[in-house]
């Protein structure tokens, strides 16, 4: 929720923004009218992936950044489930 307020404010000064969101809060981007969100199937506290899973973390970051290309609202789910290392 706190990131949502910041994301809206950033867009309101003219800067494109994208956020990552864990599934437990996956309903927030739609409710708060966020511009671009990538929802990960990860537990709270591990938004980009498990500790030591650099491959997953980078993949999530890249997938989120790719959403910046969208000129319209986009809220999508990262397909891969959580994988502890």
């Amino acid at each position: 929720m706190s990131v949502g307020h910041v994301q809206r404010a950033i867009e309101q000064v003219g800067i494109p923004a994208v956020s990552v969101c864990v599934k437990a809060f996956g309903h927030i981007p739609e409710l708060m009218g966020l511009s671009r969100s990538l929802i990960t199937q990860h537990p709270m506290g591990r938004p980009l992936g498990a500790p030591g899973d650099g491959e997953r973390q980078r993949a999530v970051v890249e997938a989120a950044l790719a959403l910046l290309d969208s000129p319209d609202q986009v809220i999508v789910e990262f397909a891969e489930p959580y994988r502890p290392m």
Partner: protein
Amino acid sequence: MSEQPEGETETDSAAETETIEQLRQSFWYGSRSNLDFKYLKDLSDAEFGDFVQEMLAAVSATMDTGDAAAVIDTAYRWQIQAYRGHLGDPNDFPHRYEDVPINAMAKPLAQSRLTLVTSSGHFVDGDDPKPFGVESMTQAEAEARIGEFLREAPSLSTIPVDVDVSQLRVRHGGYPTASMRADHQVGFPLGHLTDLVTDGVIGELNPTAYSFSGAASQVRLKKTVAPEWAQRLADDGTEAVLLVPI
């Protein structure tokens, strides 16, 4: 064997009885506080019973297979169910908006300056935001003072993107930080972003990344703090932002 210890009255026994509701709530900053499972507070007693049953079955399976996937999946599914219920009726959600402020990229990301902003509560050793004036507040102290955090405006920590990772610290009263302590890139992906600049995916990083503790007054954040931070990012020459919450 008597079910009631000798000398103990029925009234004494009743006074010590813990209800299922009290048990559930004890995981929420209570005597059994566990931020990975604080959501148990938001389950009904019947749901809590289902959770315990499913978790025990998952543990039993793990004892035979050594594969903890079922345990993790059970914790994860109930976390989702509980947090959806936590907000109540979406129509009553106080931060619901019908509009969607959005801007298209002025140029490709490969030619743009990106800024990282997280609500993970990261800061650099020696630059502690010192909540409530407390020096070196521990994670446990932050959890114990969650009520105070939720009434205060958050403060923004500035972190050089070339910071020595060993100097990163994280503290947040609202979520379990152990994973991030083990690997900061779980929620503060400076290394991955730096690699993406090297690989040509991102034009450049803002030399400063930002982090704050998202456990804060949402009203203050929305009305005054977030607009100030957004202007600061614009003044930094930011052309795109990646936000990572907890």
